[in-house]
């Protein structure tokens, strides 16, 4: 009766997030460079949805984590709890993490992700894309660190 169930679930969630982050990041960068990327439009929309859904629930966990200040975080699986704690630590590491996601609020990034027609919302396209791309990149770094533990548990160490 092993506990790999937790590692595989966490691994899968991180992989899905990385897929969404990379898809959207490439799409935004190509858009910014004026390169047509029609074939990825649908995947980029799905990526936004995946990230919005994750960040909305993750923000709730972060709020609980920050309110409890080191006390128990309840009703949350331990790996997600670890990620929330890593995120909170990253917020105070301004050398590595300085995007909107870590310096402002998660809601702000959710707002940007939902604003697909940024130009129509009064935000210049270049600024919009850059702000979002920075946040996606830093979230990706955090998740790439997070997935290591699950990968080792599932696949072992070489």
């Amino acid at each position, binding site marked *: *009766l*092993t*506990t*790999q169930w*937790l590692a595989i*679930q966490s691994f899968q969630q991180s992989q899905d997030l990385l897929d969404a982050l990379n898809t959207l990041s490439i799409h935004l960068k190509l858009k910014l460079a004026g390169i047509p990327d029609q074939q990825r439009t649908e995947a980029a929309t799905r990526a936004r949805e995946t990230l919005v859904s994750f960040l909305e629930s993750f923000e709730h966990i972060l709020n609980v984590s920050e309110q409890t200040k*080191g006390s128990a975080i*309840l*009703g949350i699986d331990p790996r997600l709890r670890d990620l929330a704690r890593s995120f909170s630590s990253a917020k105070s590491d301004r050398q590595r993490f300085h995007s909107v996601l870590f310096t402002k609020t998660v809601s702000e990034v959710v707002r940007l992700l939902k604003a697909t027609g940024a130009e129509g919302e009064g935000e210049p396209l270049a600024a919009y894309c850059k702000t979002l791309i920075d946040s996606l990149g830093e979230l990706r770094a955090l998740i790439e660190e997070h997935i290591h533990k699950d*990968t080792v548990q599932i696949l072992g160490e070489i």
Partner: protein
Amino acid sequence: MREILHQSNICLLREIEKLEAWLAPISPVQELVPYHNWIVGACQLLHGKVLQNLRDLDLGRDEILSDILSTTQELSRMFSLYNQRLLSPVFRSLPSDQLCLRIVSWLHKGHRLTSNIPVGLSDGEFGIWPAPPFPTVYFMPSSAQRGLLYLPLFFHEFGHLLYACHKQQLDTAVRELQEEILDLLTPVSRRNDLYEQTEEGKRSEIAESWYKWAQELFCDAVGLSIGGPSFTRAFSAYFRMLGRSQFHLPREELTNVSHPVSWIRVKLLVERERQLGWSLEANALENEWQTLAKEMVIVEDHYGFYTDRFQPAIQQAIDTMLKEAGPYQITQGEVSCSEWVAGQCTPVCLLNRAWSMFLSDPANYSAWESRAIATFQALGV
């Protein structure tokens, strides 16, 4: 950077193509066909994503190299997962797998949320990989796969899949249980000093441990709900000889273990088995573990991680979780089934019959089991 990425993606592509070529001609047993199809589809998807990486590299844009690097690493990890873990249920497939695969397929088909999730079987300690939309892989030690007595332990593993399918609602029930446990641990009056801070830390540690523990206890209850006494018999037979750690663990180890010690699990199973009307079986199980504990001079102490005061809250939380997840509920007829008739009786009927046979006539059990397995494989559920 571009050259490194190009080379890595070409290598990955070659590896994927090798697996695809290897997978294509395999004709698995019927129960493994959905799993095989899923893996073939997943490899095709991976193949397509690597080709996309190569097309992206051809765009010649430096600003997306970091994204292509991350994607290549993500795809490499996924490939390793397929190559090292998810493909083995297909490549190691044996005709004898049909026994286990039929039982887990029957389990999956019996629940609306799991009926379309493909199943695979692999060797290893009892376990499961329950991460839909991945297919579910069940793990079982090789010898246990070839007999009937330990198969009820699959029902516990299936509980993890039910948890994954109802995660949001069950997490809420677990949170409420953790809050109750924290309340029970917190003294009415508290000091305002360093000692109290340390104590609060210990209480938090215990409350957080109960996330995994609650899920394991829920899975035990699912096992009992599906398998009836065959589950508790398999459970006890498997764990009772694993040593002192099944009864007691030092405090520092309790913090890191994902399962409550087996003695706690037995206590809760005994209580639940009595509630379900199997008092004789419950008494036997309780006596068995008390006898072993007495022989080993175990002093029961779980350092606050569990006390009998928690029991009502735990049982209530598990009742709520069972109601939400809705596992199969064994009937009295299946428990007391005197003759297993292939095609008419369920697998749980067969497994309970197996335990009755083993306990009443151990000398002739092996011959009976071989005949029962042959009939089960020939005629099915």
